[in-house]
Every structure is written in C-alpha cells, then in structure tokens.
C-alpha cells in the first residue's frame, strides 16, 4: 500500500531494518532496537514521510523466543495519508535488557503510551520524563500482559472480609426459598399457613 515508506527506510538505514513485510496491506518494518529513536526521528522529519500522528504503541510477548518482547508502534501521516508499523524486539527470558529509547520528545502523545507499555509489558524507556505505572496501582508487582503472568493472580489492596466479620457465608449466598428474597412478585407477600400441632 505505501511501499515507498519501507523503501525509503531501507535506503536510509540499511541493515538496521532487519525485515519488512506488507501482509494484509499493513507495511511493517522490524528495526534494530539501538536505532529506534533515529528511525522515529527520520520518519517524523523527512518531508516526504511526515508521520505526525502517533497512533499506538504496545508490547506483544513471545516467551518461546529470544528476544522475547516485541514493541509495536503504529504511525500515521494526516497530510500524506500513509501508515507504517515499526517493531523492535527486546528482552531475554527474564526480561533483562528490555529497554528502548523514549520518543516522547518527538511525539508528546507517546508519553502515556510508553508508560502503559512499561506497566503492562515491562519494557523500560530511557529518557522518559515520568516512567511510572498508569493502569495498575504502584504497589502492584509484575507486568500483567506478559504471558508468564497468570491472569487470575490478584494482589488486593484491601484485604477481603472474613466470614466471622461478615456473619454470613461469603462463598455463595444461600439459595433462597421461593418466598424469601422478594416478598412481592414471585411468592407474593408472606403467606399465613395453617397447620395442626402434633
């Protein structure tokens, strides 16, 4: 679709562009992590490319390969109408060395996106003005979107109530009888039942 973007990147950066493809119509370039900021600067400043809208930044975890975490950035140019996807692969099994340069000085909109990638995937951004968690709370440990983080491991901030405190079984509410729960509607108002005494 916009093959000329990939051609210009390859012409300018040569071997730093590790691979390119245009599957499903999306032009993609995999970039050497050390050249990340230089590539972004070029894409922003080259007049024929003019990528001024920072669309998205996210991390995808491939734990079976090294480097493990793939940081994916999408960019768009409003004037020219073309898009590009940049990827950089960082981090080994324990996520050491998962670092990239921050591009907040090029696009201020990347500020929150980089914080989110740090929070969810664990990739550090060098030179970011304020790298702290954005979606999770500061006491949270771990990075939830890594495949090695189990989805149901909670780290509650407020300890859950115990049953003595509550005075009722908390696991499941007792199944209510037909009359209990709602005195109107289903069973009607409390019925008065006659029965003989034994």
């Amino acid at each position, binding site marked *: 679709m916009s093959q000329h973007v990939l051609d210009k990147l390859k012409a300018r950066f040569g071997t730093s562009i590790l691979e390119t493809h245009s599957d*499903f119509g*999306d032009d993609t370039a995999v970039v050497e992590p050390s050249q990340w900021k230089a590539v972004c600067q070029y894409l922003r400043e080259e007049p024929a490319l003019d990528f001024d809208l920072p669309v998205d930044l996210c991390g*995808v975890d491939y734990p079976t390969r090294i480097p493990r975490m793939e940081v*994916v950035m999408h960019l768009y140019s409003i004037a020219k*109408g073309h898009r590009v996807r940049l990827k950089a692969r960082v981090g080994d099994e324990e996520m050491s060395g998962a670092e990239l340069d921050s591009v907040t000085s090029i696009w*201020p*909109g990347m500020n929150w*996106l980089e914080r989110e990638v740090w929070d969810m995937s664990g990739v550090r951004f060098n030179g970011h003005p304020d790298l702290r968690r954005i*979606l999770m709370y500061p006491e949270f440990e771990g990075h939830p979107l890594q495949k090695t983080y189990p989805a149901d491991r909670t780290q509650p901030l407020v300890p859950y109530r115990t049953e003595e405190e509550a005075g009722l079984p908390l696991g499941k509410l007792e199944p209510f009888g037909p009359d209990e729960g709602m005195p109107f509607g289903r069973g009607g108002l409390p019925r008065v039942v006659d029965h003989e005494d034994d």
Partner: protein
Amino acid sequence: MEPLDIDLEEGELELPADPMHLNMGPSHPAMHGTVRIVLELSGETIVKADVQIGYLHRGFEKMSERGTWAQVFPYVDRLNYVSPMLNNVGYALAVEKLCGIAVPERCQWYRMVLGELARISDHLTCDGAMAMELGAFTPFLWFVKAREMVWDILEEETGARLTHSFGRIGGMANPPSRDFKGLCRAALPKILELVEQGEKMLLKNRIFIERLESVGVISGTDAVALGWTGPCLRASGVAYDIRKAHPYLRYDEVDFDVPIGRSGDTLDRFLVRLAEIRQSKRIIEQSLERMADEGPINCDDPRVVLPDKMDVYTTIEATIQHFKLIMEGAKVPKGEVYSYTEGGNGELGYYLVSDGGGTPYRVRIRPPCFQITGGLSKLLESRMLSDIVPTFGSLNMIGGECDH
C-alpha cells in the same frame, strides 16, 4: 496605627505560600468517568494537574487471550459502553481483515446504520452530561429521552439496550427485524427535535457560552502531536475523519459532511458533536434507502459462520462444524493486522495477532480517548479550578475505553 512609610516591593508583604494540593478523587460527581486528578493549586489557579487513570482497568486484553475469537465480542462491547455497536463492528472488521472475508452488501448497510445510531447515542450522552455538570439539568433529561428512543430501536434489533454483543465474525447475530426501517424513520425526526430544543436552551444562555468559550484551547498541531483523533481533533480544525479519509463498509457511497471547529476550545468540541448527530442522521437515511429488504446477512464462509440451526439438529456435518466453531473457535490464519474505524471518540483501532488457532494470541485495542485524556494536563495548565469540569466533560473520556 502609623502608616507605613517605607518602600516595599510589589508582593513583599505577601506571606510565602506553598501550593495547595487538592485531590479530585476517583469518585467524583462532576466527572463522568472514573479518574483521579491530583491538583496543585495556587488560589483557584491550577499550577499542575496530574491525571491518573486506571480505576476501571478490567484486563480486557488479558481476558481476550482466554477465550475464542467470538468470545471477545462481549468484552469489546464494554469498552466504549455508550456506543457499543461501533466497537462490535470495528472488531468484526478487524477479524474479517485477518481472515480475508467480506460480508454481503446488506450486512454492510446494516452495520452502518447500527453504528451511526450508536454514534448518535454517544454524542447525546456526552453533550447531555456536559450540560448537567454545568447545572443545566433539563437539556440532560431531554437528551436522555432522545437516547432512550435510540436504545428502543437497538433493543428491538439486538435484544439489549446497552451491551448488545450483536456483531459476529462474518456478519451479525440476527437479520434486521421486519420493522427496522419504519422504526428508524419514525424515531429520527423526534430525536432531532429534542436536540434542537436542547440547543435552543443552551446556546442562547450567556453563562453556558462563557463557561465554555476559550476554555481548554488546543491548537491543531499540538492535538495531532498528542495523538488526538475524532471530534476533539476536528474541533481544533484538523479535518481527519476515517470515514472520509479511508472509507470502510459503504461510507464512500453516502453523502455527508464532516463538521470542523475553528478555535479548538470546549465550545467547539460541544458544537462539533451536535453537528455530527445531524450528519449521522443523513447517513442513516441514505443507508436505509440503499439497504435491501431481503438477502443474506452472514457471509457464506463455513470457517467462521455458524450453520443454520435446523441443519445442526439434522445433519452430522453441521453438528461437527457448530461444535468446532464453538469449542475451539474459528481458526483465523496466522499473522497480524491493524484495522481502524471511526469510533465515537476517534480512531478506534484493533491490532490483532493470530497464531493460526481459535484463541487470539493478542488483541490490542487502540483506545481513542486514552490519548485524548493524556492531553488533559496540558489543557488545564494555568486555568481555574472550575474550568476542569467543562474541559474534562468535552473530552468524553469513557472509563471502559481509556482503561480497557
């Protein structure tokens, strides 16, 4: 007391003061959306505003890795919960792009009409809530009444007022009901009438205009550098609408305008949304003319579409197909795709990564109001405390989408 006869510098007698820290907590009446703003105030002027989101983070991306491709639809509904049909259609288009299938024409018109109805509901809610937060309760109730009419149509079609889960890969869950066109055509003029009444009440009111005009101004280039899209960007003068720039479905075959603002202030964001309601009405009317009354809604691809129920009960092939689609999920080809549509707040993108199986490997939503809320602290610098309410309201931050 004797008068002071020494020369004093301007402000030398003022007591040194630290700026006051005020917390507009996650539960706040005037913020529709759960967000925490930690303010440093000097008097009533904001020195610094730290916007903290994440109070509605529900783990959408992690949950979608645990089901099948079709089981993501209910989660997607609850992202932008005021215009759920737009989210549904966006996700369905993304998976269809990855599978390489195109839905029949009747379905495309149907998706457009439902999407534009959802957009009307989104803009009505945003503008109504903004008016309510400034004290105008009556126009809020009128807009909610208009929204109820939209929800009545959606309830007749999908069965639910709010979270429909109506989209499917390769089509929709059910064909349009018999009365669909009649219902839409009857409701639209009434909705427009209520919008006009609300406009008349609000836009002639001096106080309302003064609270919104020149408040929260952002220029077009700043907005673009922040990643803004949608009505907030268009209010700053940048004419970027995906329905015009990169048309999908049948948007290139209908005739509509894109309202642009001039000054990028809160009043422009308010007015752009009202104007977009009228444009959505135009799109709906044209789409209803073009939509056929009969014809298939789901595409004919057995890899993704469930077979007809009677076949499932009577033939073995359909039973197996149904079983595999439900239990294992549609086998979407390996690869990755980024698909974008115009959501209620701007460019709603889905970045899907598939490993060839029935369970998604990664579903990433590009939430439009995440970037927009990221610009809030810049909008609030050196404004007053009472400007926070209309500015934040005009950004239409939907917690479910911003915090996914």
